[in-house]
């Protein structure tokens, strides 16, 4: 999976409003039962739930159009991104190897059909074992009827078609649930068919009212064209250049080099002006920084999943949480504000000339402190994602040391904290204050050291980068000479 697809999956998940999957699944079940209470016909209920799913997905997509601009614009790619669609719709990642594709050749057509199999369907998990699972799938006999995932299927279909619509692609995808665990099948299976605009018009012309037998009323959805600015399909192309090795390669080069390289990539691979590309981030500059913080933590975790494994242990997760909170506070305490502002200036210099003037101006409005805070907010989201529950952490580590309540319930009593604080021996409070005072005093030499090394490095870098015949030139010459000698030796 490409880095961007991986990143989008993580971002989609982390910015959604989550509950437990069991609550989601039970609510979904109850919606189906309520529909059935009206239709009194199981097959009609399945059709209506699918349509409600479609409406719900469209409503959500229309609220977050910007997110979908990052998706691929061809129907084949959209189907290949099925796992991402699943995460967008359901918010739960599939287990490794849970999803498999099968391409069914379709003669005379530009695109083939696809079968997508999902081994374990969360919606069907344990369906039928509880007394409240009263919807009878035995009554859904018609060959073309879908199963329990019909609502989810409707959502997936509409998300896929919303992407194609905003990408101004004329093709559309139909996604139909073919096999359902609740109906007794061995897995969940979808068939995805790609239609051109004429075929789609015909395919979608059958009214819901004509499909259902029970005579219940249903408000049909009307497919409307989305009026969008013309934007290129950038993600497909961006994935070719946004691999981790390329990022590393770019980071090895100094600022002007990076700027030149970034501009070249955007122009060559995306056929667009750098300012047009950065226009996507305009007015979302703070989120951009959060994503960088978020990505940084996940990239660190990429090395063997060490962070995630460590945070599985509750105690380690808490310790890491407190250390992170402390680090967040200490960064601004230990690093002189001038140094932070220098890095902020570096960011502005990077964007200047590449990004639209308005975006550069927006970033200029931030302070160095804001940058740090946004980066930490993003990093915190990633750490939450990897297992730290920040909401469980106390205001300070002293509160944590206090014995936990025996019944395991969470305390909601606001006055409890104050009462406990009163009971903490005064000496601990004094020690805490003394330690904080010492920390404050100790920051001074560290600030001096950081400033010295920062400005020393800055001067050195300036002399290396700005002068061809500076340090960089000298090193380059010497390496060239060494290579010459090696060449001579070989000869």
């Amino acid at each position, binding site marked *: 999976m490409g880095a961007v697809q991986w990143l989008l999956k993580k971002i*989609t*998940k982390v910015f*959604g*409003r*989550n*509950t*437990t*999957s*069991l*609550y*989601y*699944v*039970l*609510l*979904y079940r*109850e*919606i189906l*039962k*309520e*529909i059935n*209470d*009206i239709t009194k016909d199981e097959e009609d209920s399945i059709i209506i739930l699918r349509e*409600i*799913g479609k*409406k*719900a*997905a469209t*409503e*959500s997509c229309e609220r977050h159009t910007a997110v979908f601009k990052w998706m691929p614009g061809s129907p084949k790619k959209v189907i290949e991104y099925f796992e991402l669609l699943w995460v967008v*719709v*359901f*918010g*739960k990642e599939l287990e490794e190897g849970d999803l498999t594709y099968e391409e069914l050749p379709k003669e005379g057509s530009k695109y083939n059909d696809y079968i997508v199999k999902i081994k*374990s*369907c*969360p919606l*069907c*998990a*344990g369906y039928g*074992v*509880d*007394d*409240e*699972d009263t919807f009878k799938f035995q009554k859904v006999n018609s060959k073309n009827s879908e199963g329990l995932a019909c*609502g989810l299927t409707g*959502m997936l279909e509409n998300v896929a078609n919303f992407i194609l619509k905003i990408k101004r692609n004329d093709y559309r995808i139909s996604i139909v649930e073919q096999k359902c*665990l609740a109906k007794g099948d061995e897995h969940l299976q979808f068939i995805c068919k790609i239609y051109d605009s004429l075929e789609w018009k015909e395919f979608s012309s059958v009214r819901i009212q004509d499909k259902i037998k029970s005579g*219940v*009323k*249903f*408000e049909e959805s009307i497919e409307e064209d989305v009026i969008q600015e013309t934007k290129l399909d950038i993600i497909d192309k961006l994935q070719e250049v946004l691999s981790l090795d390329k990022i590393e390669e770019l980071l090895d080069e100094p600022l002007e080099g990076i700027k030149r390289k970034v501009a070249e990539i955007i122009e060559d691979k995306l056929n667009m002006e750098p300012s047009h590309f950065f226009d996507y981030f305009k007015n979302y500059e703070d989120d951009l920084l959060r994503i960088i913080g978020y990505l940084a933590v996940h990239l660190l975790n990429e090395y063997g999943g060490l962070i995630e494994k460590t945070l599985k242990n509750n105690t380690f997760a808490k310790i890491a949480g407190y250390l992170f909170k402390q680090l967040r506070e200490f960064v601004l305490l230990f690093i002189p504000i001038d140094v932070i502002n220098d890095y902020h200036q570096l960011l502005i210099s990077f964007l200047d000339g590449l990004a639209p003037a308005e975006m550069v101006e927006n970033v200029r409005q931030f302070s160095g402190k804001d940058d740090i805070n946004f980066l930490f907010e993003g990093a915190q989201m990633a750490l939450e994602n990897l297992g730290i529950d920040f*909401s469980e952490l106390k205001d300070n580590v002293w509160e944590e040391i206090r014995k936990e309540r025996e*019944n*395991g*319930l*969470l*305390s*909601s*009593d*606001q006055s409890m904290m104050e009462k406990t604080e009163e009971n903490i021996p005064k000496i601990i409070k004094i020690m805490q204050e003394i330690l904080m005072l010492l920390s404050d005093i100790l920051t001074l030499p560290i600030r001096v050291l950081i400033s010295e090394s920062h400005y020393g490095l800055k001067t050195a870098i300036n002399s290396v980068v700005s002068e061809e015949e500076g340090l960089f030139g000298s090193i380059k010459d010497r390496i060239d000479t060494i290579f010459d000698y090696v060449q001579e030796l070989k000869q």
Partner: protein
Amino acid sequence: MNLTRDDLIQSDATMNQMRNMVYHLERFMKLNEVSEIRENLRRMGRNIARTYIKYWKPIDIVKKDNLNDVITTIYKKILNSSVSVDFNEINKIVTVKDNDCPLCKYHFNDIDVAGCEIIAAMLSEIITCLNKGKSSLILEPLDILESRTFGHKSCIQSFKYREGGV
């Protein structure tokens, strides 16, 4: 290997689109002249609770002295919501304030019943199930005092509690 409902307790799902489904269900109910929409949503909540309690419970028995913590725990563990709970000891009324209700986010002019009726009924039913057969506390959903669905900033659900049980 197929998933079980126990597995589903351990993972999260995103409610964004499911939340919309609740309101489209309400519109479908209205269109088909269902008269007791509020009662139907409460029925959904009660059914969710009855199933949920078989896979997870916050504590074995709910009493007045742990009610506050039980409510906080249920909202946190099931809905991932941090709520504030207030007691009116004179009228025996509990109010729960949720600033980030998973079922209410947008203001809808055409909706008369807030999605969090489902949540209120679920909470009350979980407590009923936990205290079943025990002479303890009962919590009945009263009203949704405020909801983001109606344009308020947060959702406030009110309940009447009775000690001593059935």
